[in-house]
């Protein structure tokens, strides 16, 4: 069982993460704070630790997913149970036995809920804890060998035992100086998550949250304030003690919805405000029920609301613009936000298909979304395409005949692979100027690409449709010819995305995956954007050489030679020759790992574009510069074209500026990193010769340029990358070759 061994590091991180996971975090520092807090009460602290060890050992011995194990997902419910049980009774051997047994129950409940809820793509939150703690509490009366704990009553005694007179004085100082009932209850509520009933615990936790994540800290405050306000408005009586053991529901709900499971932003903050009163109502009502069994609802309201909301969001039919589920969980709201805000379009998960334009060559959009003629109401997300000459005319001669129109009879292609679900072929073309309102869509083809994503081309030429229902077709395959059937006064191509398979289906707002936009004889590549009226667009064609070079195959080894000219030691250290490895992780994500410094650069290649999605490691690593330079590279052939994006700001900003940015990041980003790639030489239409590009990376504060990095990139036939980076009298040369 060689592969079932755990490293010392994995064991440690599985324990620490079990603690920080309570706040959806994987911060080691926060974990240290939390462990400290838990040991404010010896019994609870021991109970928690024992429970975590037992749950994690079970997960390891029984062979559960090691990644989830080391990220603490198997341990945190048991931890809560351990803390809860540990605080109920006086510390004793019997207590720890009880903790162990409850941890086992809790562990299996975790597995069960992970399985059940996981099917719906939902997290199991603290549901396993809830059930376990109720089991223990209900049986508590009969467990006569265990003494109900008297702690929490004689706080000073306990504090004295813990830290002597100074500690008591310090506590007194806090008690006397924090007089605002708002703050007191806030800190009490935070502490209560770890079953600690005093201010100090809450203060330490909130400090831990602040260091770990500014957004989480702000959310904890927001959630609590909204609930506090609601209590006051509707006049619910609350005494601080009864309140505290459920007050954390509001804090956790705010964190979960406002920043963790959804990408934080104004809208998620807004929903926090909307949802919290419902949490309050559920809390009050469940309390009434649970009182009958002398139980506390604990985190039940939090679990109910978060699961309900997340599940409801998943069932949305339209592609979400707001309340986007975190595509890649980076374990920190800021990171999720910055990764996402760089460019939502970078994430393929949000766009299951990458559609191309349904024609050859350059076409002009003469009606876009929300068009003035027919693209209105439920059919507003559609495009009409025509071909125009240099003077913008759509036809030659008088324009009285179909054949005069440049687009008439031109091939219409499948914008993505799929299955033909509807094909109409027998509606005659109208004479110019006339329309057919009876069969208003004319000859049309509807193709199913994915669940809820269909595309439709309409007004095709009479008897030109080359596919039939049931045909499985490839992207770019000809489906028919542009014509003038249906409600079409002159030849044009109507294209729309729709969620249902019918001819008359309403449209959905879905973008084209990639297209070239022509602006004054120059082209820029757009990805996942909606082309607008009067724009001239075309499909990019692929460069075989670039396609080959940017296809990083797992197992591939890259030999990297770095030369540095700089006064600074931190750059000089990078010089040398070493190896990069291409690997894939359990989520099927490909990344490049540097053997020298362990840095990771995650990448994605959708066949049309190469993206680097994330970088983990030191910012002076050569791999970091590779990541920055090749942040987004199109595989299309096109000299003199450019592509723009923005790099997640946490990649290039740090320190105080970023700390301040974190606070207001869901509302406004004042830091920005622009990425502009200019393709100078693309090796021609036959993909021969070197490819030359330059990437300009600009750091901006409130729109003002503060620093620029210029990266020159050359790729040759042997797929060797030659990168030169210039900034601040520093010159870094990276040569990256295939190691065979």
């Amino acid at each position: 069982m060689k592969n079932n061994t755990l490293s010392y590091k994995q064991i440690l991180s599985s324990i620490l993460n079990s603690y920080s996971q309570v706040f959806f975090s994987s911060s080691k520092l926060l974990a240290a704070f939390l462990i400290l807090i838990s040991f404010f009460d010896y019994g609870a602290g021991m109970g928690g630790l024992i429970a975590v060890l037992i749950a994690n050992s079970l997960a390891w011995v029984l062979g559960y997913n090691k990644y989830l194990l080391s990220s603490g997902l198997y341990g945190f419910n048991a931890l809560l149970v351990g803390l809860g049980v540990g605080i109920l009774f006086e510390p004793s051997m019997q207590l720890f036995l009880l903790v162990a047994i409850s941890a086992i129950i809790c562990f299996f409940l975790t597995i069960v809920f992970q399985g059940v809820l996981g099917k719906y793509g939902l997290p199991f939150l603290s549901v396993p804890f809830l059930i376990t703690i109720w089991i223990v509490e209900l049986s508590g009366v009969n467990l006569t060998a265990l003494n109900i704990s008297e702690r929490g009553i004689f706080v000073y005694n306990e504090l004295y035992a813990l830290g002597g007179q100074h500690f008591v004085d310090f506590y007194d100082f806090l008690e006397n100086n924090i007089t605002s009932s708002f703050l007191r209850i806030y800190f009490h509520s935070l502490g209560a998550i770890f079953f600690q009933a005093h201010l100090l615990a809450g203060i330490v936790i909130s400090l831990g949250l602040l260091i770990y994540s500014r957004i989480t800290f702000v959310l904890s405050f927001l959630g609590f304030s909204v609930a506090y306000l609601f209590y006051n408005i509707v006049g619910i009586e609350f005494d601080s003690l009864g309140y505290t053991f459920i007050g954390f529901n509001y804090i956790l709900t705010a964190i979960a919805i406002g920043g963790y499971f959804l990408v934080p932003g104004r809208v998620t903050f807004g929903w926090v405000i909307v949802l919290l009163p419902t949490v309050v109502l559920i809390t009050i009502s469940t309390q009434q029920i649970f009182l009958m069994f002398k139980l506390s609802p604990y985190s039940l309201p939090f679990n109910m609301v978060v699961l309900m909301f997340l599940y409801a969001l998943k069932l949305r039919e339209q592609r979400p613009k707001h309340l986007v589920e975190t595509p890649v969980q980076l374990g920190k709201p800021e990171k999720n936000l910055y990764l996402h805000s760089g460019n939502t379009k970078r994430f393929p998960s949000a766009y299951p298909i990458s559609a191309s334009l349904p024609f050859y060559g350059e076409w002009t959009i003469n009606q876009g979304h929300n068009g003035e003629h027919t693209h209105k109401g439920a059919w507003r997300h559609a495009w009409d395409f025509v071909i125009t000459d240099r003077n913008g005319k759509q036809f030659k001669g008088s324009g009285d005949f179909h054949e005069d129109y440049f687009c008439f009879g031109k091939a219409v292609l499948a914008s993505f692979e799929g299955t033909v679900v509807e094909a109409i072929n027998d509606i005659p073309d109208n004479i110019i100027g006339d329309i057919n309102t009876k069969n208003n869509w004319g000859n049309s083809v509807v193709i199913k690409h994915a669940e809820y994503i269909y595309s439709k081309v309409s007004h095709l030429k009479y008897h030109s449709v080359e596919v039939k229902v049931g045909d499985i077709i490839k992207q770019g395959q000809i489906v028919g010819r542009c014509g003038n059937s249906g409600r079409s006064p002159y030849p044009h191509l109507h294209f729309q995305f729709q969620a249902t398979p019918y001819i008359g289906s309403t449209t959905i707002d879905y973008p084209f995956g990639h297209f070239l936009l022509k602006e004054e004889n120059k082209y820029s590549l757009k990805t996942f954007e909606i082309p607008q009226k009067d724009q001239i667009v075309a499909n990019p064609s692929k460069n075989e050489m670039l396609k080959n070079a940017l296809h990083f195959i797992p197992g591939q080894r890259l030999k990297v030679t770095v030369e540095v000219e700089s006064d600074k030691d931190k750059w000089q250290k990078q010089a040398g020759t070493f190896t990069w490895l291409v690997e894939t992780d359990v989520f099927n994500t490909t990344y490049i790992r540097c053997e020298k410094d362990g840095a990771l650069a995650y990448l994605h290649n959708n066949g049309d574009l190469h993206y680097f999605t994330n970088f983990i490691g030191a910012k002076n690593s050569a791999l970091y510069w590779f990541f920055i330079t090749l942040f987004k590279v199109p595989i299309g052939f096109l000299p003199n074209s450019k592509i723009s994006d923005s790099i997640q700001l946490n990649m290039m900003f740090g320190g105080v500026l970023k700390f301040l940015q974190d606070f207001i990041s869901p509302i406004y980003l004042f830091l920005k990193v622009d990425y502009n790639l200019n393709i100078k030489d693309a090796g021609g239409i036959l993909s021969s010769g070197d490819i030359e590009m330059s990437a300009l990376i600009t750091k901006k504060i409130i729109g003002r340029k503060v620093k620029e990095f210029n990266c020159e990139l050359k790729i040759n036939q042997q797929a060797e990358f030659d990168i030169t980076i210039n900034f601040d009298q520093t010159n870094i040369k990276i040569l990256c070759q295939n190691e065979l």
Partner: protein
Amino acid sequence: MEKLKYEKPVISKITAGVPNKFGLSAKQKIISEIDGIPVSKLMDEYGSPAFIISEKTIRDTYAEAKRAFETRYPKVQFAWSYKTNYLDAVCSIFHDEGSWAEVVSGFELEKALSNGVNGSNIIFNGPEKSEEDLTLAINHNACIHIDHFDELYLLIETTRKLNKKARVAIRVNLDAGIYPIWDRFGFNYENGEAWNAINRIMLAENLEMIGLHTHIGTYIMVASAYAIAATKLSNLYMAIHRKFDHWLKYIDLGGGFASKNTLKGAYMPGSETCPTFDEYAEAISNAIISSEIPHENLPVLFLETGRAMVDDSGYLLTTVIANKRSTLGRRTMVIDAGVNLLFTSFWYNLGVYPSKEVSSHVEESTIYGPLCMNIDVIRDAINFPSSKVGDQLVIERVGAYNMTQWMQFITFRPNVVLIDLEGKTHIIRKKENLDSLQSFEMNPKR
């Protein structure tokens, strides 16, 4: 009021079949200006005769051809056929529009390179390639289109000497259903010669086979012939993939698209009968797309259209020198531009037009050039209005081949003037003079 023009009275026979007064009036077309510049002004400035080239027409024609093909086929590349017109200024316009260069000799290759064309964007055709030419082509990574086996052997030897790889294609000749079959260039498709050549090239060490080329003829008036040619090349393309697991990069269908000039002996004017770019494009694209080639492996389509691309942009301005009557009573006219400048007048009934308002009466005439040679006839029969000595005439559609096949014979070759997009004029080739001609001569001292 200006004095009315005097016209000599003429008695002409009424021939049956000519439309009477209720039929179409023979309205004489007049070309009084080119791109907005009066012909008289151009001639004042640049003399007579003078070639005028319209940059706007070149660019518009190129855009039309490009649109015709690119809206029908995913990957299209034009290569400018140097031999059609290799004045640097003209080539530069095509290169600026994105054209590659198609050259057929060492001289043209050097010219393309001196025009700043990247060597890998040059197609090297033609039956005559010396070792020197091949060396230059290999060193610049040009695409060499092999014409015959002896060239193939020479090329293999040259690559070996240089120890370099050459990118090659073969020229294929085939029966596309038109007469005559141009079988003097390249390797024959039907008898298996082309397949034989491909096999040898695929096994040759230093040759990288990247394309297939054909050129079915010139002034081809049926688009369907191109469809047959494209189908046959597509078959070879697939055969190479099947046998060698190798996808070629392109199929080159050469040139040969007819311009709107009217061939001698044609019943209808060329502008009415010749296929448009759209018709050629439709035939070619459909043939390749509907061939066996999977659409994700479609080759780049190369076109070497010369004539149809540039003919319309060229004008020759000329002046009437004399009016005569032949012994048979036929009206004849001598102008100052002869066949030495207008090679295409041997094939076409070139359009000759007055530049000023003329009387509506036309008479069948013969137009002679100025040379002291009997063959110097620009039009042997043209209905032309009466004109006086010194009248300025315009000959249209002379952009292709004339400025490359012209001869310095008896007279100097005239100025060639380009009208740019802003309507400014530039001399792009100066009128020759005695010095320029004698500079190459050497007279042995006796």
